[in-house]
C-alpha cells in the first residue's frame, strides 16, 4: 500500500512535467478546454480539469498559447486556445529534448 502510494506520487510528478509538452502538441489546431481534455484523454493522457485550466492560463501568460472567447455553431461561448508562434518554436526544442531524454532513459532501463 505504502509502495503504491509512492509510485503514484512519483508518477504524478512525472506526468506534471510532461503535461506542458502534451498540451502544446495538441494545440496546433484550436481547441476549447473541454475538447482538449477529451482529445488528451482519447490519446491516453488522462488529465484533471483542475490541472488543465490553470496550465492553459500559465502557458498563455508565458506567450506560448493564444486564446479568445468565441461562439461557434450557435453553441455557448467558449474560450479557444491555439499554440502561438513562440509556442511552436519552444515545442520544437522541447520535442528534441524529450527524444534525447527518452532515449537515455530507455538505455538506462534496458
Amino acid at each position, binding site marked *: 500500500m505504502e509502495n503504491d502510494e509512492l509510485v503514484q506520487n512519483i508518477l504524478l510528478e512525472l506526468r506534471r512535467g510532461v503535461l506542458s509538452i502534451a498540451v502544446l502538441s495538441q494545440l496546433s489546431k484550436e481547441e*476549447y*478546454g473541454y475538447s482538449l481534455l477529451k482529445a488528451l484523454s482519447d490519446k491516453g493522457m488522462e488529465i484533471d*480539469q*483542475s*490541472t488543465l*485550466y*490553470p496550465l492553459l492560463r500559465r502557458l498563455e*501568460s508565458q506567450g506560448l498559447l493564444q486564446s479568445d472567447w468565441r461562439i461557434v455553431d450557435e453553441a*455557448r461561448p467558449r474560450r479557444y486556445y491555439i499554440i502561438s508562434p513562440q509556442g511552436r518554436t519552444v515545442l520544437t526544442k522541447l520535442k528534441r529534448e524529450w527524444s534525447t531524454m527518452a532515449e537515455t532513459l530507455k538505455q538506462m532501463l534496458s
Partner: protein
Amino acid sequence: MNLIDKYIAEVGRHLPRKNRADIEAEIRSTLEDMLDERKQGDGPANEAIVMQLLKEYGSPREVAATYGTQQHQYLIGPRLFPIFERVVRIVLAIVTGASLIGLGVGLAETGLTGPEFVSTLGEWAGGLFSGLIAAFGNIVLVFAIIERTQAAKEFEKEFAKESKDWDPKELKSEPDPDRIDMADHIATIIFSVLGLIVLNLYPNLLSIRFLSDGTWSTFPVLTKAFFRFLPWINVMGLLQIVFSGFMLGQRVWTSTTRIVGILVDIAGMILAVSILRTPGVFGITLGALNSIGITDDAQDLSRLFSYLPTLILVIVVIATSVKVIKTLLRLFGGKSSSPYPVIK
C-alpha cells in the same frame, strides 16, 4: 439561481479579483459541456446529475486554489525566501546581542542580587521578546512589499549574476569559520595569568614611581576600592583561562562553546562595567599628583584621568558588543549541524 450558478459564485468568492470573471466564465463553459455529455436528450439536466458533476469537479475552495497559485497567495515567495531567512537570522542575532549588552549594563547598575536584579531580568526578557517580534514583523513587512514590486526581479537578477560569476577558487581564500583563533586564546591565557599574578601577588607594581628631590616617591594607580573586586576578578580570570585552555584542546567552535564564550564575555563585561562605575577606583587624583610634587599641570592631568573610567567603559562595551554580535551571527548563521562527527 440554479446549482451551477451558486457553485460558480462560490468558486468566485475564493478567486483573485483580477481574473475572476474570466475564470468563472471558463468554469461555466466547461461544466455545461460536461453536463451536455452526461444528460439524456435536450431537456434540462436533473439535479442528481448536476450534483454528481459538481462533486467530481471539486469543492469551490479547492477549484479556486488551483488558479490562485499564479497570484500572490503568499507573503514572501520562494525566490525571496532564502534572503528573507538570512536577514531574519542576522537581524534577530543583532537584536539579541544588543539586548544582552543592555542587560549587562543594567545588571552592572543593579548588581546581581535583590529585587532590582529580578525586575531588571524580567524587564529585559519582556523587552527582548517584544523587540524580536517587532523586528520580525518589520522584516516580513519589508519583504512582502519587495515581493510585490519590481525590486524582487532585481534581487533575482543579482542572485543569477552571483551564481554565474561564482568561482570555486574563492573557496581557497575563505577561512574556516569554525576553526578557533589559536593566537587569540594563547594571548588570553598569558595575559590572564600575568594579570592575576600581578594583581594578587605584586599589586605594588601597579604604582607610579616618581623621583622627587632625590628620593623615589610612589603612589598606587589602583585604589582599595578597586581591590575590593579582586575575588571577582580572580574568578573571571580563572574562567577565561579554563575556557581558553579548553578551546585550545578542542580546536573548533561548536554551538555550545560559542554560547559559553558569549556568557564568559558578557560576565567579563558586567564585571568591568561594575568596577569602572565605582567611584575612586583609580588613584591618580589631584591630591596624589600634588603629593609627588606635580603641581603645574596637576589639574589638567587629574581631569584627564577622571575621564579614564568612562573611556575604558565605552571601549569595553563596544568591543564586547562587536564580539558577541559576531559570535551570535556565527551561531545563527544558518549552517546546519553535521549528522556525523566532523574531524578537522
